[in-house]
Structures are given as C-alpha cells and as structure tokens.
C-alpha cells in the first residue's frame, strides 16, 4: 500500500470531493506505512531522501573519471560546477570562496532537484512547498553565516559589525542597532525560507488548479465547460514551463543569497 501511494500522484485524501477545491490539504503527505505509528515517514520524506540520493549520486558520477582534457560527461559537469564555483561562490565570496563552495554546490543541487520534483510526472510535488524543509535549509544558512562571522571576528566583533554600520552618528544608534539586528538576524533567515516555500507552494497550487480543475471541467456535461477544461489543460503546459523556470530560479536565488549573507559576515568592510 505504501509503495502504491508513491507511484500514484494523488493529492489529499481518498474521497473524490476532498480533492476539490485545492487548498492546504493538497499539500498533505501520505504516510507510507499507515497505522504503523510512523506517520512521519510519508511520500514527502521519501522524495526528499530520493532527492538527496540523486544529488549525491549524480555529482559523484560527474566528479569521477576526470581527465585533463574533459570528455562530454566531464565537460557538462564542469559547466554546471563552474556556474556555482565561479559565477556564485568566487564572485560573491572572493578569495575565501573555497571553504563555502561545497555548501553552495550542495544547496543549489538539492533545492533544484527537489523543486523539479514538482514537474516530475511520478512525484508531481515540490518538496520545498512543505515549509519544514525550507526552514531547515534557511536555518543551516543562518547557522553557517553566523558561525563564519564569529569565527572570523569573534562574538563581539561580529555583533558590532552586523549591527552597526560604520559612520553612523551615535544619536542614531538607538534606531540603527535594532534595525540592523532585525534585518541581519531575523528577517534574513525568515525571508530566505519563506521565499522558497511560497514560490513553490503557490506554483504547485496553480498547477493543481489548472490540471485538476481542467480535468474536472472536462468531465462536465456542458460543452462550454469541456472547452474551458481543454483550455485549462493546454494552459497547464505553459504553467509547467513557468514552474520549471521558477524551480531553477529559486534554487539559484537561495544559493546566491546564502553566499551573499556569508560574504557580508566575513567582509572586511561594510
């Protein structure tokens, strides 16, 4: 039963009427072992694990058998790797990029693969539309950039740098310090998580509306409804294309912002 739940991309509960209208319940997980007391082992966890396995497997596959003159596989791997290494890590972090490069590579790949699950026909669900996964990555970035800053400047040196930009007149400290603190320590991780989550949540919801709504309309007797349903299903193709773009974009943005936050923590100047 558990495996059947995996391969049939059904949303929500079992009853037909619970599918419509789409809502928060469209994002409910299906336990793989119902009634076994391990309801947290659901299809979302499964696809998150699958995503991790794919990311690790593909990268290791791309990283092995390297030669000085690359073949097709190595060339493709290096193209992707170079975007992350030179385009993001080195451009933003400067000469210290090497330390944080694995984190950024892992981050981009893991988010990208999980986002693309939203368009993958067997799963049809982006993992990060579950906010817990988004929070987890945002927390890691939060821990990482703070740890990097503290390791470089010490606790007080780091706090001072992060809360008080240079050249602020003392009269404004009362305003600036809380603002900077809120911006750097509260707003950053929350926006990071919510941006990723909200984009994928909304994207998935739109896909559900178009696909399921279209199918529902197509089943109606009226010819007008059938026409509208057909148009909706055709439109869903465009929505899929958009969602693939959003999946890549959000993975990229999350990675770039993480790099940016790390860079601001270890930067010499404000």
């Amino acid at each position, binding site marked *: 039963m558990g495996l059947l739940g995996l391969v049939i991309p059904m949303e929500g509960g079992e009853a037909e009427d619970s599918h419509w209208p789409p809502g928060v319940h469209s994002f409910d997980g299906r336990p793989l072992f119902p009634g076994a007391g391990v309801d947290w082992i659901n299809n979302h*966890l499964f696809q998150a694990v699958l995503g991790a396995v794919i990311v*690790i497997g593909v990268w290791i596959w791309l*990283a092995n058998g390297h030669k000085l003159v690359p073949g097709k596989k190595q060339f493709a791997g290096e193209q992707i790797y170079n975007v992350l290494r030179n385009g993001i890590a080195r451009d933003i972090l400067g000469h210290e990029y090497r330390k944080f490069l694995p984190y950024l590579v892992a981050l981009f790949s893991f988010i990208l693969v999980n986002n693309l699950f939203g368009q993958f026909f067997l799963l049809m669900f982006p993992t990060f539309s579950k906010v*817990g996964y988004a929070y987890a990555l945002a927390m890691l970035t939060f821990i990482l950039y703070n740890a990097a800053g503290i390791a470089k400047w010490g606790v007080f040196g780091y706090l001072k740098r992060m809360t008080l930009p240079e050249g602020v007149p003392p009269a404004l400290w009362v305003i600036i310090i809380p603002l900077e603190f809120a911006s750097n320590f509260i707003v950053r991780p929350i926006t990071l998580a919510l941006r990723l989550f909200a984009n994928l949540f909304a994207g998935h919801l739109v896909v559900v509306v178009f696909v399921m709504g279209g199918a529902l309309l197509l089943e109606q007797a009226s010819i007008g409804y059938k026409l509208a349903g057909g148009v909706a299903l055709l439109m869903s193709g465009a929505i899929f294309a958009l969602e693939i773009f959003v999946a890549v974009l959000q993975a990229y943005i999350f990675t770039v912002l993480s790099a940016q936050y790390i860079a601001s923590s270890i930067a010499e100047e404000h």
Partner: protein
Amino acid sequence: MLPSLAGEIPLIPAIPELIAGFVLFLIVWYAIAKFVVPKFEETYAERTAVIQGGIERAEKAQADAATALNDYNAQLATAREEAARIREEAKSQGTSILAEMRAQAQEESARLLAHAKAQIEAERSLAVQQLRTEVGGLATTLAGRIVGESLDDDDRARRTVDRFIADLESQAEQASGHKV
C-alpha cells in the same frame, strides 16, 4: 497540537520535516564536500599546473634557443677574429720571411763574391810567385846571353832581346793556355 496546526497553516512546520530536511541536507553537504568538490578542484589544479608547466617549458625552450643563438654568434665572431688574426699573422710572417730570404741571399752572394775574390787573389799571388821565379831565371839567362854577345854587336844584342821577349810571350801564352 502542532501536527494538526501544521495541517491547517502551511507556515507552521511539521517537526519531522524540519529534522528530515536538516539531516538530509547535512548528508548532501558532507558528500559534496568530501567526494565531489575536491575531485573537481583537483582536476582544475592539475590542469592549471599542466598549462603553466607547458608555458614554462615553452619559455625555457625559447630561452635555450636564444642562448644557443648567442653562443653560435659569439663563436662565429671569435672564428672570424681568429681568421683575421691568422691572415694578418701570415701576412706579416710572409713579409718577414721575404726579408730574411733576401738578407740570406744577399749574404750568400756576398759570401760567394768574397770567396771568388779570395781565390782570384790566391791564384794571382801564385802566378806572381811563379813569374818571379821564372823571371829571375830568365833574367839570368838573358843577362848571360847579353853579356856573351853584346861585345860583338849591338844590333845582335837588340835582336836577342827581341827574341827573348818573343819567347817569353810564347811561353807565357803556353803557360796561361796550360793553366786554363
């Protein structure tokens, strides 16, 4: 209460998801850091080293070629100088040899001349010696004859002398012809 709340409000995370996301990403991070990034960086480093090595080798070869060319040119210049020097030497040597030869020839000719002169002198003195001896004898003979006949006839005496001189001359001719 949280799970049901998570079901209602999508912003409240389900704790298992949070933990799963955390743990899974740590695993991915570890794997990438351990097995992927070092491999790529290793390849890049090797490639950089090879390219740099190639450039260095090319530069070295170029430098070697330049050194060889310089050496060659220097050698050529030395050889030219040497040749010029040898020519110059030969010229001066030729001149000196010529002068020496001339001096030697002059010396030789002088020596030959002196030798010839000395020989001539010796022969002459020998001839004079012989002549003196003969003239003494002849004079005595002549005197005897003159004394023997002068009393009779002056004319005869004169003829005798003439004859004597003619004899003398023929004798001298005979002597010189004998000598030669």
